[in-house]
């Protein structure tokens, strides 16, 4: 994320300032290298056009995230919580390219389940190819209607089929597509709102998570009592005049 990139750059810059004529690498000696006000905040998601998704892809994801987490009396669904925005911004960043993962081949066709992720496809490729294959499937099986145009029962049945591997898409593993969207939807719904999802901290309110308050000594001191303070995020909360 942006913070670490900045720190890497700082480290790289230090090579040229602190080490003239000596080994390249950050040298620390005689004092802690701490600087006042030095911190590495995560970049906050900004509203605006899609950074990676196409409009058609975003329409499909809006429909999917609202079935995974439907809107109801417990709070907003995935769409209004911002899960699609979250997914788009994550796909546009280092996560979307698996930038930090080990992506050298070979990639054998028959890994053991215990060996975990063994696909060469990045999340960006998984979404692009998987949603295209889902579009082809819907076109063929629902008389030309796309996923967002299906009834909620049809949507739920199709999603359950993808999850279980019972619905076969042409040229793409439906379970991989479901798994990617499911994981990212839950991340978006429960991550700090600065990443574009969890609007109004709806996910945190659903599970009673107070967010970033960081001090619960009073809770420990008063066992078996309901916690009543509203959640707080890295950017504050609405009552503090902060958009969340």
């Amino acid at each position: 994320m942006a913070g670490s990139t900045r720190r890497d750059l700082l480290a790289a810059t230090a090579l040229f300032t602190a080490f003239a004529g000596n080994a390249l690498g950050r040298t620390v000696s005689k004092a802690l290298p701490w600087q006042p006000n030095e911190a590495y905040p995560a970049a906050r998601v900004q509203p605006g056009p899609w950074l990676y998704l196409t409009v058609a892809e975003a329409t499909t994801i809006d429909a999917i995230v609202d079935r995974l987490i439907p809107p109801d009396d417990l709070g907003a669904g995935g769409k209004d919580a911002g899960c699609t925005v979250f997914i788009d911004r994550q796909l546009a960043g280092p996560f979307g390219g698996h930038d930090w993962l080990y992506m050298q081949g070979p990639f054998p066709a028959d890994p053991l389940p215990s060996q975990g992720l063994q696909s060469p496809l990045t999340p960006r490729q998984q979404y692009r190819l998987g949603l295209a294959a889902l579009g082809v499937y819907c076109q063929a099986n629902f008389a030309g209607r796309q996923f967002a145009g299906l009834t909620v029962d049809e949507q739920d049945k199709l999603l359950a089929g993808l999850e279980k591997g019972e619905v076969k898409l042409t040229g793409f593993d439906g379970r991989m597509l479901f798994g990617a969207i499911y994981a990212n939807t839950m991340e978006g719904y429960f991550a700090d709102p600065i990443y574009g999802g969890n609007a109004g901290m709806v996910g945190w309110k659903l599970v009673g998570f107070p967010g970033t308050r960081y001090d619960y000594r009073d809770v420990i001191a008063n066992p078996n009592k309901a916690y009543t303070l509203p959640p707080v995020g890295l950017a504050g909360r609405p009552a503090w005049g902060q958009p969340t």
Partner: protein
Amino acid sequence: MTRRLPSKNVVIIGLGWTGSIMALELAKTGLDVVAIERGPWRDTAADFNIGTTPDELRYGIRLEMFLRPKQESITMRNNPTQTALPIRRWGSFLPGNGVGGAGMHWNGQTWRFLPDDFRIRSHMTERYGAAILPADNHIQDWPVSYEELEPHYDRFEYIAGISGKAGNLKGRIQPGGNPFEGARAREYPTPPMQQGYAQDLFAKAATEKGMHPFPRPSANLSAAYTNPYGCSMAPCTYCGFCERFGCANYSKASPQTCVLPALLQEPTFEARTNCEVTKVNLSPDGKTAISVTYVDLQGEEWEQPADLVLICAFGLFNVRLMLLSGIGKPYDPNHDEGVVGRNYAYQTGSGSTGFFENAQFNTFAAAGSLGVAADDYNSDNFDHGPHGFVGGASITSAHTNARPIGYRPVPPGTPNWGSKWKRAVHDSAGRFTSVGAQGSVMSYRNNYLDLDPTYKDPLGRPLMRMTFDYQDNERKMANWMADRCDEVARAMGAKNTQVNRLVGPWSVVPYQTTHNTGGAVMGNDPKTSALNRYLQSWDVSNVFVMGASAFPQNAGYNPTGTVGALTYWALDAILGKYLKSPGPLVQA
């Protein structure tokens, strides 16, 4: 082109707990010490800032503080007949990176192993006969006893400020502590943490079942504390962001809070970060290390000569560096020969999650080491005769966090998504709590580490290959413990429970534990150990190797307390013996 730097007395590879303690104690004697760390410098104010650190997505899910698999991963298979493939995304365990290492991102549970653990092979054979030992086991007695390590455990606990209650002071059992523990010379430096409602229920239920619960020893401090190095810590606030995170409160013991402020005052110490040691270079006869080679961020290669080389990386990477450098004979399971990579072990996890009707556990009010444990079923604290397995587990009611991306349990039978899931996750919130069993893993002929024949790191060096699976002995033990946990969870008042058993092959996907041990074990016989009892390489006497890689097999406890004790034990040998007369401290 490699450039050669002026020689140092001591080069330390990796600046975590073991590296920083060694660096401080050796620099205090006036030696020129350089620590070379492949990750970045990290400090509390900048990197664990309270305005940025409670961020589950960034640190808990995307794993910003950890080693990136792109830089180095490990290949994995369950047995030698399979083809290992790289762990492309960390899951089962999470190797750290940067200054502080695992001591920065840990939960802080700081145990001593039990006296029996150090002579488990002899003990089990004496009590039950050799037939109780599992097939193809490599179980070995440690070359040190609990009594020898006791002062060093004590020293580490006082550096870290550990919060706990003694159960055995000089042989006298103490109320409120662990009656099974080995005798300790004095109390913990700080009192135990305050426990939550779930832990109170557990303590009551476990006591009714004849168990002996006690607050587990914690590196999240219950009170302000200044350690013998003059470093000060503040009380834990139960924020629920320990493991995978740095602590913004200076409350979790780490190299940052406990060692580095003192270390940086030593004028003969220097740290080089973002520099990865690629090899320890040996003399032509292979008996002496002469230097280390490292690569900086720019890809420039440097050679740092030194008289003494301390390998202080995470255990797994200690083993890989030894294999890449030719320090010790690589282990070969076909002939059951060689020592480097031998006896890799891990830990079992099993237990029961209880769902309650009327309770407010406030699970988010948590700390990495908050918890009440019972050791009645650990090590050989109970009769193994009827069970047919070796080893045991610490049974615990703990709340380390309730961060909602990663941890939001729902009762068994709940769908994974949709309206019913949403209702269930809402209704369960704050009403679930787990009883867990963290168990030992013995060592076996076919659980080992070597170099992978196919996959390489970005510098072209082979990745290490891990061949590991749980064996019948561990499955039996862990599943028996799961039933014990479930009994306690039900006795606590759970309406229904989800029992978590050890089934199927070990998988890299779900997080389990970062208690990877062995691969460069200590012992009295150079045919079955890479290191002698002082953690000195049998083959290259000016190389010492710190860390859990030295464990002959793993016990039912978190490793850091023992890693810290072994570090001070080895330090005493280096200061008291080696530096006066460099050479092998034990004759092979």
